């Protein structure tokens, strides 16, 4: 080997080494998260520092626009850039994203059970002091409990909806002389009467919802468990003290099946019983407004879908609703839903947004825009403009009302957002009730 060759080799090595050092040196901030870099461009560390907060949730389309509108002014004032992202696959994606280290700053959980799953596994940050104070002053103990996991508060409730409404056309009822039923048996009698009068299926139902297909079915079962067996059984059922295979739960399935699995009673405007699974839950608004369908079971948020489908909501308008009556017609029991905001980050900007979302200010700002409710005590009832929402507030504020949160949302994700949804789909599709109940029960977590 000649000396010159050796020299050239060393020179090359040296050149490469210099290149490595130079590039690594000038790289400066590679790998530094984008949020910090953008914050660095602002002046100093003063409160005017602009930062970005990402929020992830299920609320989509028109509802998402209202949500963004509700905090737009506040965000501008506080110089915080709130990025909202919605997904109909939220229930699936949030767990995958959390476990994959790609979580958003804040997540709007429609299911306290899912929030609990993430909290007990250490993904979520406990609620900061400001949020805890807002929860203590703004919400009842029941509602605060939905955001509490094993004694630690993880977030504040956001919005609320009242479930168990039966939607109908007041005009049609008046013309045909049908009466609003006051007992569950009355509902079945009315169904038979409408079927006889019209000669076609009175009820319409749609369980389709992407990955979450089947959830409207769980609402049926929950309403019937609460109304037929009472709140104690309901509470034990949520805690798996009463199993899905228990006769009381089976009875609720069978009562619901008297309507949902009877081809003479469903699925108005869509075909046979199996078409329930193939029909998107929001699409039902179209047949309801068209008049193909006389009765439909869905939560208070459905008024938004009816408006989108070109109908009006009100006691004397195209479509109105009554609460599914209890077994004996005494008192009223309602199930309801809501969202809890959980945080994956404790950045000061994130905490600020979380505190704001937990405040009565936000609740008023959002409810004013229409379509939703909040259970916040600081909510001015006058802000609920929609007649149905006024009715829902009245139901919630009635001391005789037994209110319970949606059971499937309280159960662990593997049941509430898993085997229960899938079980409803299989059940509608004709699977045997006992087999379905066994399957749902087997989804309960191993520990």
């Amino acid at each position, binding site marked *: 080997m000649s000396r010159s060759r050796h020299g050239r080799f060393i020179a090359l090595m040296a050149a490469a080494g210099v290149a*490595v050092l130079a590039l690594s040196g000038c790289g400066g901030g590679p790998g530094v998260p984008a949020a910090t870099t953008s914050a660095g461009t602002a002046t100093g560390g003063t409160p005017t520092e602009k930062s970005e907060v990402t929020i992830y949730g299920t609320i989509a389309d028109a509802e998402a626009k209202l949500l963004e509108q509700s905090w737009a002014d506040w965000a501008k004032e506080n110089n915080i850039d709130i990025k909202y992202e919605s997904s109909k696959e939220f229930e699936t994606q949030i767990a995958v994203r959390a476990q994959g280290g790609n979580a958003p700053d804040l997540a709007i959980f429609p299911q306290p059970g899912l929030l609990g799953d993430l909290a007990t596994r250490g993904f979520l940050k406990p609620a900061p002091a400001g949020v805890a104070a807002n929860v203590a002053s703004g919400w009842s103990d029941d509602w605060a409990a939905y955001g509490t996991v094993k004694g630690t508060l993880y977030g504040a409730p956001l919005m609320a909806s009242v479930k168990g409404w039966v939607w109908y056309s007041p005009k049609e009822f008046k013309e045909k002389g049908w009466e609003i039923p006051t007992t569950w048996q009355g509902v079945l009698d009315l169904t038979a009467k409408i079927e006889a009068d019209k000669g076609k299926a009175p009820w319409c139902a749609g369980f389709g919802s992407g990955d979450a297909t*089947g959830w409207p079915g769980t609402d049926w079962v929950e309403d019937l468990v609460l109304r037929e067996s009472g709140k104690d059984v309901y509470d034990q059922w949520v805690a798996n003290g009463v199993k899905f295979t228990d006769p009381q739960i089976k009875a609720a399935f069978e009562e619901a099946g008297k309507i949902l699995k009877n081809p003479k009673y469903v699925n108005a405007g869509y075909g046979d019983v199996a078409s329930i699974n193939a029909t998107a839950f929001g699409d039902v608004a179209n047949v309801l407004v068209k008049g193909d369908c006389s009765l439909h079971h869905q939560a208070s948020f459905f008024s938004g879908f009816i408006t989108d489908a070109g109908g009006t909501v009100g006691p004397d308008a195209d479509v109105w609703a009554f609460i599914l009556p209890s077994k004996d017609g005494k008192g009223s029991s309602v199930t309801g839903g809501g969202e809890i905001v959980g945080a994956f980050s404790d950045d000061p900007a994130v905490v600020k947004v979380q505190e704001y979302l937990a405040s009565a200010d936000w609740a008023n700002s959002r409810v004013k825009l229409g379509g939703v409710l909040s259970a916040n005590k600081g909510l001015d009832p006058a802000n609920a403009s929609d007649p149905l929402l006024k009715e829902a507030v009245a139901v919630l504020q009635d001391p005789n009302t037994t209110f319970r949160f949606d059971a499937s949302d309280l159960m662990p994700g593997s049941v509430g957002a898993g085997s229960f949804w899938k079980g409803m789909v299989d059940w509608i599709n004709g699977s045997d009730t006992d087999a379905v109940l066994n399957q749902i029960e087997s989804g309960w977590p191993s520990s």
Partner: protein
Amino acid sequence: MSAFLQWLSTLPSLVQVPVVIGAFLAVVGLLLFFIELAPRPGRKYTIIRMVACVILPLGMVAILDSYTWAIIGAGFLGLLLFWFDNRSRHGAGHLFQLVGFLSPAAILLVAGLIVPTIQTTAQSFMNSRGDQFVGLENFIWIFTQPQGVRTVLNTVAWVLLAPALSTIAGLAYAVFIDKSRGENFFKILVFMPMAISFVGASIIWRFIYTARPADQDQIGLFNQLIVWMGGEPVQFLQVEPWNTLALIAVLIWVQTGFAMVILSAAIKAVPIEQLEAAELDGANAWQRFANVTLPNIRSSLVVVLTTISIASLKVFDIVRTMTAGANDTSVIANEMYTQFRNFESGRSAAFAVVLFLMVMPIVIYNARQINKQRELR
């Protein structure tokens, strides 16, 4: 990379197209250039290779906004490989070089395959939180809950039907269009679905299967045909057990092209003399196919069958997109994902182990076949 994309987004949309195509061609050209360069001996090429080893990773890292350490690591690796390359030309330190060149691949193999396999197996014996040993409980759960056995059986149905049907279809097609006029055109027709992702194919087929009530306009192809012939619309994806077959049809649709291309190439390699000799001996077309062509393409058939078997064992996208496992159509890979996202990592891992055990025999058989072929050569 993100900086490049951000810059790209500021351009007018018509300018973006040629820039993207240009960038794509540049990358492909660069790759081909180095592949072409790699086997060439000589110091000039060694230097170019060495520069490429250092500069390319550096460039990538700089563009991708990655970590400082990655830059140093890439540079260090490039220099190390260059040094090994340089030594090897003088025929020194054979074992040393072997270890040096193999270690990156070995490290990746251990970190990406062997460690996860061991971890998953360990996890399948733990509870959902992974903090308590539960023995075989997760496996017992799979085989005792009502739909668990069904999930495994569905996977078996996939693995029996999809490879057999798509290979038969591909083989028949390859034989019939062999040496026909417009052969390439016919091949492209069947091969095209290969270019569509499973999710894309599933969405296409979900529309084909869509059913609307009899009194409404059908948007699904099959149900429109049924209605035209005077039938009632069928919910293809809900009627059990036929819905599983409807899903398998999608995989067959995608994989037939693959089978056809490989088998067509194998058929073309059958020695023409043997076919002529058989013809002279009075063998008819079927006898020539069964006794001459088939034995000659046996190794290709094995490759096609095992490849599609493995693809159908791990099928996930089709089931997830079309039914998400509802109505008894679930398969192991789908349940694995469903359990994982419900935080049931133990059950998910148990499904993974069952799948692993089912894939193993096919992989081993395939590997042995490839070995045998090497020995023949």
